[in-house]
């Protein structure tokens, strides 16, 4: 998994990262490369800089500073020498590489008629290392049924609390039919290539054997396409919020398709304040809300609630295994 990340780093930086202690490498979450500024590596807990000798330090002055040449080489390696292939990605500001890792890009933006045309002089890279954690959702499975019927699920969580990881694992479990479940057809609409992490249409994460993925497709449109063409039992969509997303959810639910989705928010009240979501909540579309936090590390499940926001079961505030 990790060697894919190393593959897009220019030799000078690759050697530094490779020389880090294994215990550090295994916990790396982000590698941040900024032209002429300290090379930074981040784990779940801390952020540190890397010295030219490959040691970790908290002192930015001692750190290795990637040169202009490093950045240029890195862009060449990411794009395979073909920027024109990354046109869409440069507009969105990130690239998904093999292995499902994502690289955020920053630099000089070229604007045309008020819209971002592409990025020039890319000088900032944020390599986010993807680690799939199979089994994150195991403990939640029993709560997602009501009288033997599967429910529509909304995962509520602030950023970086593992909602995408959780959603991906749910897709995998239902698609594979793990945990004694009946296997189901799963359709993922992956607008930001985050859930399945597709490269050329092929999911880089394990999303299950019965899963179809629409990569880079706008959510509302994608959900309709899925319903029309792939007849899924479950639709999995990340981060709904716009009005058309809400309408598509209604369409799906009325067509008898179950919807698993997520929303940004610290609490259920916060979600209810947002127009589209509050409408969905009032109509009782979702009968299971899963609230996540980072209280005991990413992926802490604060609770599972039903359509009238009553706590379901006696789920201890438990940290899921990740």
């Amino acid at each position, binding site marked *: 998994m990790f060697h894919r990340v190393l593959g897009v780093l*220019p*030799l000078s930086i690759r050697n530094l990262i490779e020389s880090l202690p294994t215990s550090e490498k295994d916990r790396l979450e982000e590698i941040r490369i900024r032209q002429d500024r300290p090379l930074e590596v981040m784990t779940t807990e801390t952020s540190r800089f890397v010295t030219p000798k490959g040691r970790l330090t908290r002192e930015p002055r001692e750190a290795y500073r990637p040169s202009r040449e490093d950045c*240029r*080489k*890195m862009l*060449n*390696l990411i*794009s*395979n*020498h*073909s*920027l*024109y*292939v990354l*046109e869409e990605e440069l507009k969105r500001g990130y690239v998904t590489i093999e292995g499902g890792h994502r690289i955020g890009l920053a630099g000089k933006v070229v604007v045309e008629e008020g819209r971002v045309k*592409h990025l020039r002089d890319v000088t900032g890279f944020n390599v986010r290392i993807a680690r799939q954690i199979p089994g994150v959702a195991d403990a939640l499975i029993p709560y997602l049924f009501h009288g033997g019927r599967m429910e529509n699920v909304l995962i509520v969580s602030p950023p970086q609390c593992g909602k995408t990881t959780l959603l991906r694992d749910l897709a995998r479990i239902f698609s594979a039919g793990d945990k004694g479940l009946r296997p189901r057809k799963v359709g993922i609409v992956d607008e930001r290539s985050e859930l399945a992490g597709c490269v050329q249409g092929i999911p880089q994460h394990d999303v299950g054997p019965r899963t179809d993925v629409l990569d880079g497709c706008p959510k509302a449109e994608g959900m309709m396409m899925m319903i029309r063409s792939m007849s899924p039992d479950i639709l999995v969509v990340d981060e709904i919020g716009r009005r058309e997303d809400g309408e598509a959810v209604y369409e799906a639910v009325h067509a008898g398709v179950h919807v698993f989705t997520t929303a940004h928010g610290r609490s259920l009240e916060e979600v209810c304040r947002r127009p589209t979501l509050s409408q969905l909540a009032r109509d009782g579309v979702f009968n299971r809300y899963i609230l996540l936090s980072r209280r005991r590390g990413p992926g802490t499940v604060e609770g599972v609630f039903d359509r009238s926001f009553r706590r379901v079961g006696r789920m201890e505030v438990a940290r899921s295994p990740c």
Partner: protein
Amino acid sequence: MLKLIGAVLVLFSTTLTGFRMARRYAERPRQIRQLRQSLSLLETDISYGSRTLVDAFGFIAKREREPVATLFSTCVRYLETLDGASTYQCWKRAVEETWPHTAMKTPEREVMVDFGKNLGLSDRQDQLQHVRMTIANLEVEEHHARDEQMRYEKMCKTLGFLAGALLVILMI
């Protein structure tokens, strides 16, 4: 008797040299045309297939005949192994290494090296424009090459034979 054998040998070798030179004149426009064809393949790859340069070059190397195939496969090798060195460097090296093995001359080499300067550096529209421009430039060179072929191909062949004949007469 020995004289006769010597004369035949001299005549034979000069004629052969003449033919080889003529062949170069005949090969040049053909190879330029081949280059043009491979660039139109690249154009299609960029506009419809959105393949990366590495993939597109590999594909061309498989489809085209020598020596164009070698040019592209060499470039692919450099792109993949030179640790993110700029596309232009890889391309230039490949062009300069393959050129001596072709019948092509400096003008078309300049066109191809220039082509590398913009390779992979801009958006699709711009890339396509450059490919088209290069194809047009190659076409001009091909015309020149054809003109030269008309003028010199036959001449080389005759000249080789005649030069041999002259030598034989002088020596006898």
